[in-house]
């Protein structure tokens, strides 16, 4: 047994602190917001047609699915975990939906098929999220390993469901195809419906994290699981729930992607999504160690990455360089927001 008196003090962690000037503390929470504002201002000045509904929709469309997934990822990371399976879960949701849209009469009425196409995939990915949660809490695997299982296996499941074939929605039999496609392509007052979905997800998630008992439990679990448990926080239940949320939102993003593409490709839907989502969370200011999290930050983080990409493409910078600049800006963003742990 060790001596608690010494252990609590511990050795000072020696991380290599590069001589990067620390931002003043009062600015640090707004770093991401300031960076986003700077990008927007730059584009307004230097990019032609930046202030148009078309550009807005284009950018927001590309960022919407990332944000939806990254919100779920934020909850998981807030508990000190990580979810690598989100991309594969998107693929599973993506191949399940068309199965309910095959012909008009199969489920009695076309609208029942549509409802099932929307609900069943979400149910399945939520249950798969619960599977992740079980591996983490009951089996006791590390989150990165636990979710690696479905990262690898999940896409296999998606491929098996449809024999690896791509499905074009317009070739399916249901008269409700255009209704289904509305979640990706529909417009409300000139704004893409998927953007509205994204904004609702962000708003609800921010409120849940901030104002509910569950949200507080998430942060307490990530901040100090042992202490949280002793204060009556149902730590395992909380972890289980965040993986379910992540699974649900991955499923939702999968539906949106299929609706946008008007087709479902088990190989491509959600590819690299886990990494994009983690990058958005990190750039947004949520540390991967858990205990602290900001949903709004995640949204801003995803927007920053998107706008950096857009800016470079709009100014005809080659793709290879674009990728390197994005990588560099992630490092800068995370360093700028790093808090010195005393």
């Amino acid at each position, binding site marked *: 047994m060790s001596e608690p008196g010494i252990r*609590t*003090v511990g050795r*000072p962690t020696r991380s290599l602190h590069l001589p990067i000037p620390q931002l003043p503390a009062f600015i640090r929470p707004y770093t991401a917001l300031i960076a986003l504002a700077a990008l927007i201002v730059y584009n307004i000045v230097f990019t032609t047609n930046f202030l148009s509904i078309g550009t807005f929709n284009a950018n927001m469309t590309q960022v919407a699915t990332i944000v939806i997934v990254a919100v779920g990822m934020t909850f998981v990371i807030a508990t000190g975990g990580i979810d690598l399976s989100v991309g594969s879960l998107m693929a599973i949701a993506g191949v399940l939906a068309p199965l309910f849209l095959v012909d008009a009469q199969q489920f009695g009425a076309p609208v029942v098929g549509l409802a099932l196409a929307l609900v069943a995939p979400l149910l399945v990915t939520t249950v798969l999220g619960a599977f992740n949660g079980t591996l983490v809490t009951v089996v006791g695997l590390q989150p990165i390993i636990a979710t690696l299982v479905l990262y690898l296996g999940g896409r296999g499941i998606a491929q098996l469901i449809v024999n690896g074939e791509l499905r074009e929605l317009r070739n399916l039999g249901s008269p409700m195809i255009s209704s289904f496609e509305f979640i990706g392509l529909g417009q409300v007052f000139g704004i893409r419906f998927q953007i509205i979905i994204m904004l609702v997800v962000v708003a609800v998630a921010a409120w849940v994290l901030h104002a509910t*008992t569950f949200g507080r439990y998430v942060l307490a679990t990530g901040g100090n699981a042992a202490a949280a*448990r*002793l204060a009556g*926080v149902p730590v395992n239940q909380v972890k289980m729930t965040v993986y379910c949320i992540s699974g649900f939102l991955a499923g939702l993003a999968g539906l949106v992607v299929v609706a946008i593409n008007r087709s479902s490709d088990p190989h491509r839907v959600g590819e690299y999504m886990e990494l994009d989502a983690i990058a958005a969370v990190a750039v947004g200011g949520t540390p991967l160690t858990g205990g602290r999290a900001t949903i709004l930050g995640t949204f801003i983080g995803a927007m920053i990455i998107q706008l950096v990409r857009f800016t470079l493409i709009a100014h005809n910078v080659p793709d290879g360089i674009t990728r390197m600049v994005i990588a560099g800006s992630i490092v800068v963003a995370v360093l700028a927001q790093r808090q010195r742990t005393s």
Partner: protein
Amino acid sequence: MSDSLVAPQPLLVMEGIEKAFPGVIALDGASLRVAPGEVHAVIGQNGAGKSTLMKILNGAYRRDAGTILLDGQPVDFHNPREAQDAGVSTIYQEINLVPYRSVAENIFMGREPRRWGMLDRERMNRDATAVLDRLGVHVDVRRPLSTLNIALQQMVAIARAISTDARIVIMDEPTSSLDEREVEVLFDVIRGLKADGISAIYISHRLDELYAVCDRVTIMRDGKTIDERAVAGASKVELVARMLGKEIGEVSRSGATGFQHRGARPAGEVLVEADDLQGARLDGASVTVRSGEIVGLAGLLGSGRTEVARAVFGADPASGGLRVRGKPVRWKSPRDAIRAGFGFSSEDRKADGIIPYMSVRENLTLAALPVLSRNGIVDRTEQQRIVDRFIDRLGIKTAGPEQKIRELSGGNQQKVLLARWLCLNPSLLLLDEPTRGIDVGAKAEIQGLIDELADNGLGVLMISSELEEITEGADRVVVLREGRTVAEFDHVEVSQDTVMHAMAHGDDESRSRGVEESSGRRLQAQEDGETVRRLVGATPASPAPLDER
């Protein structure tokens, strides 16, 4: 240096060692002298600085000040490897070997014999066998380490230590995972090392073991070396008193703590009865707490005090009877105990108490969230009201309820953690070292608060390493030793002496009541060396037979 003419030159001299960590002074002028072929015990309470001193000796930490002489030569180890090369080897509390490699590989890891640049496996196995033979251990050195039992693994760790031509072997709690018989084998090995002229530094909180195997003992307290003496001739009570910083015969000094009302409260109904708890580090602990009384739980480090509190709170599994207001209960988690009106504050605020990045408000109301929310939504107005009330009532010094708790002083953190339970209006509080590591003023305040709470009918089980807290605060004292309840005193009977005796020996014939002891352990006078030797004769060198139930 004051080397006398007659004494042999000490092998090791550590003098004036200082070491500070952020926020804590771990060592403040510690010293240690070890003669060649001597088994030297280092004892002290939690946080006395034993482990830090050893880590400075073996190069794991750098000292801030002080000198280390090995064979009269000043040395300065930058890492454990340098210390090992100079003959200082360490066997850690947790055996740090590689379970899936062979015994021989573990013994020679990092120093494998080579031939033409390749591993000379034959020679390695031969040498490993030879080293183990020297310890009287005969195993096939090609077996994976994981196939050996813990005791044999310990032997392999020792073999690894001495195969480096060690002259001093540091053993930090080497018996903590061994059973009685295995302890005996270990002691034989230590005696063998001694015969070969190898010194050992032996850290343990099992005092019996000192008498069995150690020649001299250094006593540490608060980062300082308090005393150094021969083991033969030192009574256990004396050692305990020195560890705790008390004089034998010192009676309770009233007014040293913030407690005022000991014994003046009428105890109420029985809140909780824990009966014959068994589990990790528990071996027949029993304790009862009534409403409106403070029960002090005393015992040495490792006696199972914390484990009792955690078992009563449902934090760790333990078998045995647990009754709340007469009804048997079985907790699945602390949540159940909290619903029953229990609260628990841990001895380790940082590890088990605070949520560092959350605010004072959130930390204070964490346990109360189920009460403070409707349909899962936190009632911020009510939350704020409670937080303001407790900040005011307990005098918590904070920049505001939104300040991060990690920025508060230890005493104020502790108040927030107490408020975490008090705002639930609990019936029983389990307080593990409630005043550890906080300044004198806050300490007295918290003690006064505990007193007042008990006056108002709260039941308190208070664990403390500070004898004053126990003797001045508790209406009743329960003493644990090696996971077992060995004595119980009411406030009239209790004194620092009686408690110390019970902590050291598990029995105090003249004053304890209601606890049976086997006759072999019954001790009379303890103050002279002669008795101590008899005591050692009568007492097995390890946690031993109290089992006549």
